[in-house]
Every structure is written in structure tokens, then in C-alpha cells.
């Protein structure tokens, strides 16, 4: 098949995975939703290169990746702002960028934020599992995380939209993000002070954070009910509170059910910011 383009992974940085919009519809079978942690950034990267919004792209954690696309292609970089070099020359983010045949694509380390998305026109066409090409780090579904030497086929470009946007305006990531939350479903398991503490004190993003969840450190959230919560379904953005009182934000690969009470849930509009929380930085809730 001479027409199939291939990209070759040279460096992956800390963690690089293929992500699309995940596997909704299987949660009752124990399958996490998965997919891009920062969905708006994935969608934007795809739109910029004329792909359908849910095409598979690369999710880079703290940048540091390099690849070569045999035959050349259009790419776009979105999400956490990182330097982009194509054939050694600096290129802008949030804009379609043409990669000549054989040119090296290098993504540096982002200055703020955590996850940078690299879309290619046609998409990274790895084998789908249950309708998605996403790597799910909790369940192991989908392709394993990328490794140097991996060859990723690029999907067909016939029938895709023309490139229509030169550069997309993107709001910069704030230094101390303030995430909006909605109390519940188990806010009544906590003292009234717990919700006030959560919305008045800053929490620190710890290094024990990944695509499953963001572990926070800060004032403990005290419970009024101490019995065991019967296992119940969990949503992305849930602030689950284990017995130590330190909340965990559930991200894309979170378990579908859990037995610790959820004090509040981050609004859908602010989930992308939650996915960009960088270990060692503060976060506020309101």
C-alpha cells in the first residue's frame, strides 16, 4: 500500500499516547470513558488540519516528543503551549503547519500546563478497540503508550475538509487556575465547613497525578458520615475524597465505579483546565 503514510516516533517525552474521544457507552461493563484528557484541545487540533473533531491525535505529557512523517503532512499543535520545530525551524501553535517530506517534528517542554496535542491531517490510524483508538492507562485497552521506534500509520485524507483557519485564538492558561464546581452528589457526607474550605483555600497538584486522576494536597475535607459508601458510578471531573480527606479529581481514565464520596464535580466547561493541572502548581475551586 504505497499511499499509506507513516509517522515514525523518535522520542516520546514523559508519556505520549494516541487519544480520540474515547469509549462512551461501555461504562456499565467496567470500561473507562478514556479519550483525550483535554477534549477542547484535541477538537481544535483536528479542526485546524481539516479532520473530524474526534480523530485520533497524540497527547503529549510535558512535551519532549519528536517524530518524522514519511511523505510529509499537515499538522497542528494545541493545548499546553510548547515550542514547535519543523525541520529545525520554529513554528506557531494553534495553526495548521505543513511538514515537508522527511522533516523532523520536535515538540519542546511546555512552559505552563501539562498536555499538548499533536494532530495530523488524516489522524494517527492505530488499531481501534471498542470503537476507539485511545490508550486507556487504567484498563489497558487500546494501544500501549508510544515508544521510540513505533511506526504509526496516518489515516486517509480523501474527503476531509479543506484547511480553513490560519490561526485559532486561544486563551492563555492561567497561573493559578480557578475551577468552577457544583456541589454533590455526596456533599451531605461532609461537614458544611468542608465545602467552604474547598472553595476558599488553594490546593497543590501533587506528582501522584496521571490520566486517571489528579491527587491534590491541602486542607483535609472532614466527613460527617463515616460509614462505607456503597459503590456507585463516577463521572469525569468528580472530586472524590478518600478517608485522608485529600481530594482526587477524576480525569479521562477514571474507574467507572467508586466507593469514596464525591463532594463536588467540576463543570464540563472547566474540565479541560483540570486536565492541564501541572504537578507542583496551585489550583483553586469556586
Amino acid at each position, binding site marked *: 500500500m504505497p499511499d499509506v503514510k507513516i509517522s515514525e516516533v523518535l522520542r516520546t517525552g514523559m508519556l505520549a499516547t494516541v487519544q480520540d474521544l474515547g469509549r*462512551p*457507552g*461501555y*461504562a*456499565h*461493563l*467496567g*470500561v473507562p*470513558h478514556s479519550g483525550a484528557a483535554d477534549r477542547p484541545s484535541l477538537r481544535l487540533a483536528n479542526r485546524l488540519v481539516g479532520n473530524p473533531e474526534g480523530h485520533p491525535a497524540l497527547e503529549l505529557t510535558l512535551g519532549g516528543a519528536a517524530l518524522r512523517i514519511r511523505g510529509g503532512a499537515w499538522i497542528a499543535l494545541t493545548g499546553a503551549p510548547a515550542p514547535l520545530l519543523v525541520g529545525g525551524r520554529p513554528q506557531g501553535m494553534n495553526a495548521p503547519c505543513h511538514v515537508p517530506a522527511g522533516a523532523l517534528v520536535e515538540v519542546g517542554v511546555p512552559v505552563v500546563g501539562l498536555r499538548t496535542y499533536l494532530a495530523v491531517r488524516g489522524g494517527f490510524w492505530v488499531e481501534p*478497540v*471498542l470503537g476507539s483508538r485511545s490508550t486507556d492507562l487504567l*484498563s*489497558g*485497552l487500546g494501544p500501549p503508550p508510544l515508544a521510540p521506534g513505533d511506526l504509526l500509520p496516518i489515516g486517509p485524507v480523501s474527503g476531509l475538509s479543506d484547511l480553513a483557519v490560519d490561526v485559532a485564538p486561544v486563551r492563555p492558561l492561567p497561573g493559578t487556575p480557578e475551577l468552577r464546581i*457544583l456541589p*454533590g*452528589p455526596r456533599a451531605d457526607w461532609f461537614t458544611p465547613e468542608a465545602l467552604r474550605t474547598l472553595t476558599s483555600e488553594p490546593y497543590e497538584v501533587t506528582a501522584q497525578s496521571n490520566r486517571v486522576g489528579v491527587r491534590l494536597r491541602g486542607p483535609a475535607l472532614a466527613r460527617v458520615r463515616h460509614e462505607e459508601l*456503597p*459503590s*456507585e*458510578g*463516577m*463521572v469525569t*471531573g*468528580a472530586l472524590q475524597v478518600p478517608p485522608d480527606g485529600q481530594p482526587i479529581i477524576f480525569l479521562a481514565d477514571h*474507574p*467507572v*465505579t*467508586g466507593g469514596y464520596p*464525591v463532594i463536588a*464535580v*467540576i*463543570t*464540563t466547561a472547566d474540565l479541560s483546565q483540570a486536565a492541564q493541572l501541572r504537578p507542583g502548581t496551585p489550583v483553586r475551586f469556586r
Partner: protein
Amino acid sequence: MRVLAAGDAALLVETGDLPAAHRLHAALRAADIPGVLDVVPGEATVLVSVDPARCDLGRLAARLPSLPPAGYGSQDVTVEIPVVYDGEDLDEVAELTGLTRAAVVARHSACTYVVAYLGFAPGFAYLTGLDPLLHLPRRPTPRTAVAAGSVAIAGPYTSVYPSRSPGGWHLLGHTDTPLWNTHRTQPSLLTPGMRVVFSPILTPETCPGGPAGA
């Protein structure tokens, strides 16, 4: 029925008990409401996740009490899983429960279980209905790897590990029945509400009257 918001894109419905959770889960699947993305039963809850652009949570909440009950569903299915009771922890379970190995096997295979919900791993079903004499806390130190097909117990549940994974449950035996296959339209053998029976396969090693038992 008490309906709680779980953020701006999901409802957590308290049903009071497991059978009511299964009825609501089945009714929601049968209703096939546009914009509903996932329906997840828990022990006494159902979580309904939606695409807020296509499904209004307030209107959905108002509709829940009057959903028509589902007809034929997973509750009407009984799955038989043949088990060789040769698990690594069978002796320990016998000791902890004060039963003989044969009595542990007899009690575990005498019940009809119900798939309460799935979680922990794709296809991992929490089955309720375990004989109270077999309720044991998890092992103090989980194993780093439990083989696919391992039949195990912990707390009030029994389950079968659908794929190789770490695990802290007590291993009673194993089955060759595949529980999880992503190439099937229905990847999980077990779905919420189904009934499950374990039928012991007698081998010389596990049959008390056989050569090994003599």
C-alpha cells in the same frame, strides 16, 4: 427514588436497593433516550451521563419515575460457569471459615448469584448472593498478578477475573469460560442484572471421593 446532580452532565439516582437499580438501568437502556451516553448501576444507585447539548438534565429527571419497565432483559438470563475448584487460597479460606475444602466448594457452587454491577476492570462483575459464611475481608497483601479466569471471593461478593490483573481477592478456582472479548459485539459475558451459577468440574484432585482424596 431520589435524584441527585453529579455535575452538569449526569444524574445519580438513588433507587434504595439493587433490584430497583437494575430495573431502572434496564428501563433506561430500553428507552434509548437521545443524548444519554452511559447508564451505570451501582449497589443502590444508577448513574446517568448525558451530552448536555442534547439532553436536558431537568427534563430527564422528571421523566425517570414514569419510564416504562423494560421487557425481556439481562435479569431473565442465567449464565452457567463451569469451575475447577483448585484455587491457591482454598485451604486458607477453609481455615478462616472453619469449613472443609469440600464445604467451601459446596457452599460457593450452591448459590444463584446476581451481577450487581461491573467495575475494577473491563468485564469484572461483582456478583451478590454469596453465602454469608464465605464473607471474608480481602487478603492483607494483594497479589501483583492474578490469572484470567480466576474465580474469587471478597467481602459479600464473588467474581471471575476477566483478564490478568493485580488482585486482592481469595482464589477458589478457575474457569476456561472467556469473560471478556473486545472482538465480540457484546464484549462482556456478564452484564448487570444477569444470574450466574457456578458448576463444579470434578477432577481427581478436587473430587473428595476420587483417587487423590483416598
